């Protein structure tokens, strides 16, 4: 039950109006650029784990440019709305967004050119942005501590811990490219790369997926949510599994790594079973294209974890597991959620900026979202097949479909923004309201 949370000033729970369109534009551009890079150099998808080059550049356009930007947009916006605390102000958010976006561009330039100075500068800039983000994230969690949203707060807190570890490892790895300082330590560069990847994909993103799914999936599907602490054991189990796997990667302890993997897989299985139960109890029959992607992403999460085991024992390439997890699970889920959240945010912002709010359905466009969903699903399918068969032709086809999905995302977001501006022009800007009258009873 919600207790002690102020209802006044709900408009302060929205981030400043320019933040969502700018962040979504960066996400769309990074997505388009990542696929474009792969279209130009399709063989790069087969050698991502081989160090700096177009493959690692495309990977970081996806992880930092798309997923990282999504995290620094979603957390400061959705967490305040759900837990009823004020959203961070624009002067605090802008350095975060500039650090992540600018650092990602610098880092990608470094990977493409092979210049370790650019890599170190990019990683340090991203780490600076993320460091500031960690502070505002921690502050939001502290302010929301009485909101009663147990699962959401737990998952966010653990994800924040993972982000701190990822940033520290990322900076160390980039500095090692420049100075080679790890060769004088007992730690191996390759082992730290694996720990970095496990914490980024499964730790940070996995925990965020778990936490926000407990709120967003029932909301979007119009379904009865689970209890606010129903997933607590699963979130803890999952985090324990991921941290164990990351630690085992650092110390190269194989048995401990398998234990962590099995623990995380069990937690994911049980969590997805819960999500399917929520969906079964939904009251809206037709869920639209967004849930094509959301359901697909759940299958790809499990498939990616299993493929990760296959890669561990050498049956499958790490690139295949990576394709199932990154463009597969995470990007599929993100695009499914974004096509519902972008109109939702536009509708919420219309209350703040227009004389009369615009209802959410006015911002939806089922044809565009269906095309976006199909293009992305096609890209994932072709990419997986292309990597499994080591076929640059299929990978190029995947990149073409992915490029289309990126452009469609930009087009869809621009359409929503344009409709918001048209609505504001039609009804006029918001004016102050008279003081409220007393309750009738």
């Amino acid at each position: 039950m919600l207790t002690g949370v102020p209802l006044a000033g709900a408009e302060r729970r929205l981030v400043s109006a320019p933040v969502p369109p700018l962040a979504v534009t960066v996400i769309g551009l990074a997505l388009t650029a990542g696929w474009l890079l792969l279209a130009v150099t399709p063989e790069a998808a087969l050698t991502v784990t081989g160090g700096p080059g177009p493959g690692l550049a495309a990977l970081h356009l996806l992880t930092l440019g798309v997923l990282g930007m999504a995290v620094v947009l979603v957390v400061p916006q959705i967490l305040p709305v759900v837990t009823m605390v004020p959203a961070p102000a624009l002067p605090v958010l802008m350095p975060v967004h500039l650090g992540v976006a600018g650092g990602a561009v610098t880092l990608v330039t470094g990977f493409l050119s092979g210049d370790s100075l650019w890599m170190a500068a990019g990683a340090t800039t991203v780490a600076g942005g993320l460091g500031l983000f960690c502070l505002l994230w921690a502050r939001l969690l502290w302010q929301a501590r009485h909101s009663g949203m147990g699962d959401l707060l737990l998952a966010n807190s653990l994800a924040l811990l993972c982000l701190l570890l990822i940033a520290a490892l990322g900076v160390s790895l980039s500095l090692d490219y420049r100075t080679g300082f790890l060769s004088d330590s007992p730690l191996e560069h390759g082992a730290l790369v694996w720990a970095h990847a496990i914490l980024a994909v499964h730790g940070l993103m996995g925990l965020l997926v778990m936490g926000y799914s407990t709120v967003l999936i029932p909301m979007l599907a119009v379904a009865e949510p689970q209890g606010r602490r129903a997933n607590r054991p699963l979130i803890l189990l999952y985090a324990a599994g991921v941290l164990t796997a990351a630690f085992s990667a650092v110390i190269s302890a194989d048995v401990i790594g398998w234990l962590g993997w099995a623990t995380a897989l069990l937690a994911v299985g049980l969590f997805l079973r819960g999500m399917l139960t929520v969906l079964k109890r939904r009251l809206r029959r037709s869920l639209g294209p967004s849930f094509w992607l959301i359901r697909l992403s759940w299958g790809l999460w499990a498939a990616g974890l299993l493929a990760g085991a296959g890669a561990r024992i050498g049956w499958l390439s790490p690139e295949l597991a990576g394709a199932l997890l990154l463009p597969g699970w995470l990007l599929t889920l993100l695009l499914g959620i974004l096509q519902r959240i972008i109109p939702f945010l536009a509708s919420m912002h219309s209350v703040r900026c227009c004389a009369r709010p615009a209802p959410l359905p006015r911002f939806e466009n089922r044809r565009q979202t269906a095309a976006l969903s199909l293009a992305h699903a096609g890209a994932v399918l072709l990419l997986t097949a292309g990597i499994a068969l080591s076929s640059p032709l299929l990978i190029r086809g995947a990149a073409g479909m992915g490029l289309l999905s990126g452009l469609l995302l930009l087009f869809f977001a621009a359409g929503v923004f344009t409709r918001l501006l048209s609505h504001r022009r039609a009804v006029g800007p918001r004016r102050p309201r008279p003081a409220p009258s007393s309750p009738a009873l």
Partner: protein
Amino acid sequence: MSSDFFGQTRTGSLLHGEHQSTLAALVELETFTSRRTPPELDETGRAFLLRLYHLIEADVTDHFTFEETNLFPRLSAVGASFMVEMLEAEHEDIRALAQDLRAMIGTFLDDAPVSADHWAQFRTTARDLIDMETFHIQKEEMGLLAALPQVLNEADDAAVAAAHPKHTAG
């Protein structure tokens, strides 16, 4: 309701029950309008349309008016005017759509068979109403119902619940 997600008040439980009924009717409406060609209105079809007519009327008059009279002023008084403005604007949009839909249902019931043009118009309006009402209910479940424990103490809750049409109708 098994979950504690939206908070618990008697008033909230009454509204939640009405939301469930409305959503169930919207699902039926979605199924009913899934055909592109006009249906032949048999006994079942006419009975459904008549039930829908009354349910829409109850939703936009009793349910909306109850919220606007008993809850929105309380929310505004504690500073939640942002939420109230949003919900009031949606009520207004839904009322207009509901009025159109009810007029069309009335025509269907009086002048069967349904023409292709009227059916196409009905489907479009029904789709708009389903989208609008579903989103509105989502928002009320997560915003309004979650906020009720903060604006209604136990005595207020009992008094407001007693003013609900469900209790005053008989």
